[in-house]
């Protein structure tokens, strides 16, 4: 407890020091090309839950976080120390403007979703917060690694010391995990994988290009099967449970945002029409929530183990 407190104190001081010491102007250009310019490095930051998950492990502690669910349920924030951070929103579209104002923020950091043309939290939250301070942040793209690197650049600009031992260790751990993942995929060139979300009404097969981490996996050598017809937004193919065997991968990745998804899948009698499901070649798909090296490394390790255990010749 004391160590944790001391660590956060050190982080807080580190975050404060550059701003206090140098009165030099600060600027950041987000993915949409908009630049935010401030007279000094911002130290009082309000972050969306995802931005907080990206920044806190890099040593940037926001003064306030807004989430779209109870913070305890937010997968991205799991395992992060949030003591002393004011939670100013725990419901979709709702944020306590007065609490936010009392925090006197000098910057709002969110994520930009180009497809929805929206900042995280949605328009209402942005409209509520933007009179208090300018809003900026990284843009969702086609790689989680790139997203984390964007967070590194943003954090460095905000005065974080990325060479600090803990932060550097996280990054090294990720690089080790990544190397192991690449080795595993190149050892099994014929292994195919399918990312799914299981609903009570249907099996949803993910299109690789719809999820940044799936694009990463593909680039690192995993043969992900792409659905034939994705929906009009390019995210899913919806398969009736009668057609659950339309694709036969060697390994199935199941969305792990909620444990219930796996339970739903197992409860379906036709789940095991997929040979991989019958052989229990099933692994977690960390869908949409990865924002830092440590979480990514953990998930990659699980995947690597699953790939090593899988039979690449289960299906042709």
């Amino acid at each position, binding site marked *: 407890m004391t160590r944790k407190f001391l660590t956060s104190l050190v982080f807080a001081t580190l975050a404060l020091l550059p701003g206090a010491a140098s009165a030099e102007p600060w600027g950041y250009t987000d993915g949409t090309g908009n630049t935010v310019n401030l007279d000094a490095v911002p130290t009082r930051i309000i972050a969306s839950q995802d931005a907080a998950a990206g920044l806190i492990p890099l040593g940037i502690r926001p003064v306030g976080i807004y989430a*779209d*669910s*109870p913070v305890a*349920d937010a997968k991205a924030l799991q395992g992060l120390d949030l003591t002393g951070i004011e939670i100013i929103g*725990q*419901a*979709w*579209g*709702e944020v306590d403007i007065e609490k936010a104002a009392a925090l006197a923020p000098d910057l709002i950091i969110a994520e930009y979703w180009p497809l929805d043309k929206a900042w995280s939290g949605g328009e209402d939250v942005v409209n509520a917060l933007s009179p208090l301070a300018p809003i900026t942040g990284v843009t969702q793209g086609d790689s989680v690694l790139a997203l984390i690197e964007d967070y590194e650049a943003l954090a460095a600009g905000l005065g974080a010391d990325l060479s600090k031992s803990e932060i550097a260790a996280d990054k090294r751990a990720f690089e080790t995990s990544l190397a192991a993942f690449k080795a595993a995929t190149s050892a099994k060139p014929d292994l195919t994988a399918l990312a799914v979300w299981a*609903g*009570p*009404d*249907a099996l949803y097969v993910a299109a690789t290009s719809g999820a940044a981490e799936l694009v990463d996996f593909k680039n690192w050598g995993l043969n992900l099967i792409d659905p034939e*017809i994705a929906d009009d937004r390019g995210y899913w*193919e*919806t*398969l*009736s*449970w*009668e*057609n659950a*065997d*339309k694709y036969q991968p060697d390994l199935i990745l199941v969305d792990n*945002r*909620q444990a*219930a998804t796996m*339970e*739903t899948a197992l*409860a*379906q*009698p*036709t789940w095991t*029409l997929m040979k991989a499901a019958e052989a229990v070649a099933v692994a977690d798909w960390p869908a949409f929530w990865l924002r830092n090296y440590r979480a990514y490394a953990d998930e990659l390790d699980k995947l690597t183990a699953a790939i090593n255990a899988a039979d690449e010749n289960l299906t042709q």
Partner: protein
Amino acid sequence: MVSAPASVVTTRGTALALGLFCLVAAVVLVAFLSITVGARPIDLQTVWSSLTAFNPQSTDHRIIWDLRLPRTVIGLAVGAALGLSGAVLQGATRNPLADPSILGIHSGAAVFVVLGVAVFGITQLSLYVWLALIGAGIAMLVVYSVASLGREGATPIKLALAGAAMTAAMQSVTSAILLTSPRTLDEIRFWQVGSLAGRDMAIFVQVAPFLAVGVVLALASGRMLDGLSMGEDVARALGQNVGRSRAMAGLAAVILAGAATAAAGPIAFVGLTVPHVARAITGPNYRWILPYSMLLAPILLLAADVIGRVIAPPGEVQVGIVTAFLGAPVFIALVRRRRLATL
């Protein structure tokens, strides 16, 4: 005209009984369709051999047994329950708008399921059954007792108002929970649309006792509903205990609607529309309206489910959507044709 010749009555009775027989045949037909038609094309021969000589190695056979049979059985049961509960509610409240969703029974069931998912982390459909039944029962109890207060008892207008109030209150609670818990929203959005897919026989086994009790109670209340339909004073003059008749009919409706909602989610339009169609065929006699509703509703529900399975391959459209689109126009046509305000 005052006293119809006995032969006319008998002819009408025979015609209605014949009609009932035709409906049974129609139920068998849609059940057959529901087993043979699906998102995955399976030819008739395979369907037949799966029924006569089941081979667990055959994917097609497994789909017939694991998916289509349970879904057909549940569809028949849920349909019958919804049709009966709508007819009983309309008769007991003498209210053309009476329907499990209008009287707040669906929303009561929904709020308990949502609470179960959000607070206790329940995710198995089999546990939804109990939650839905409890919620439906409480909602109906509150709505009915509130509407019965006052001198004139539960008049149609007071029942409908109390039901609407209940629905609004429950929907607010539901929305509050869903907004603060995306985890629950993700679970519930598939349940609340109303669907027969992904239900196995265990669910049927769980709701079957409730359905049996509900069906017996409902069919037994036909004579009382006929008495009520002549007005409460006439019913009393005929020696009927109006309060007890209503209570029994209400209990039947709650059990049926609660069990149906638990098994398939809130399917809104069947209970409202089917009794009106039945009444258009049979005339105002509940001893006929009830069995007709009980047979017409599963026909509508299963036909809707079959349509939903084939219109958006390789996926499916949930039955709740299809029934709304099939049932609502029928209902609107009926409203335009007949005077419904007098029940």
